[in-house]
């Protein structure tokens, strides 16, 4: 699935990275513990979290994640958005719960 398709599947809003939506995603990782994410998420995955502070951008950058998806209506800080813009990280938001978001992505795999 491409990020563009994913946006439709989970009714997401694109906050940053409009130019990168044609990228294919290589999986999904769900966690709010940064050490868990940094240790286990893989390149090209999208990351579902409710953590919105700037440090999530550093994690996504280090792991070459395809996007960060803020679930359950969580919205990133202004600083997080600026940093993501500067570093070329895709940020998406969705009002869906983490469970619903993950469920829809699981159902629409490939």
């Amino acid at each position: 699935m491409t990020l563009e398709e994913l946006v439709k599947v989970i009714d997401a809003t694109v906050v940053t990275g409009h130019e990168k939506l044609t990228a294919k995603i290589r999986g999904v990782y769900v966690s709010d513990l940064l050490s868990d994410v940094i240790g286990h998420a893989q390149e090209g995955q999208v990351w579902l979290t409710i953590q919105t502070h700037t440090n999530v951008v550093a994690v996504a950058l280090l792991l070459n994640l395809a996007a960060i998806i803020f679930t359950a209506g969580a919205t990133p800080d202004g600083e997080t958005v600026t940093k993501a813009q500067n570093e070329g990280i895709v940020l998406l938001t969705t009002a869906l719960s983490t469970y619903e978001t993950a469920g829809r992505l699981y159902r629409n795999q490939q």
Partner: protein
Amino acid sequence: MSQPRVLLEIPVEGNNFTTAGEAASRVKRTLQKLGIDSALIRRVSIATYEAEMNIVIHAEYGKIVLQVDAGGVTVLAEDRGKGIPDLNQAMTAGFSTASDRARAMGFGAGMGLPNIKKCTDQLEIDTQVNVGTKVVMKFTYPTTS
């Protein structure tokens, strides 16, 4: 073996969560420019990020130093801070002394040092209570087959 070359020396500020992660990002970018194996870069990036976060969460200030030589990559994380009273306990997955603020941000899961151990080929930790901690992380280049 050639003399180690210091490529970066980056100061890290304790308790500054805004810039946290930048040292690890710079280390990663530098290694990418050198054309180093991407799996190795991933291991170095993860370990460096965790070591950097440990300074931010637990210490007053410190630095991250990146060195390369013919055998591999070495990252040194050195800080002035409270030190680690019980290293065995600190190495245990799930054990953490991080502040509530850090935990609310998703840090302090007690996975930092275990993550570092998993990613390094050689790990040395030298710590003294109320003085500071020095972590030396060595990563060996993959052998070409």
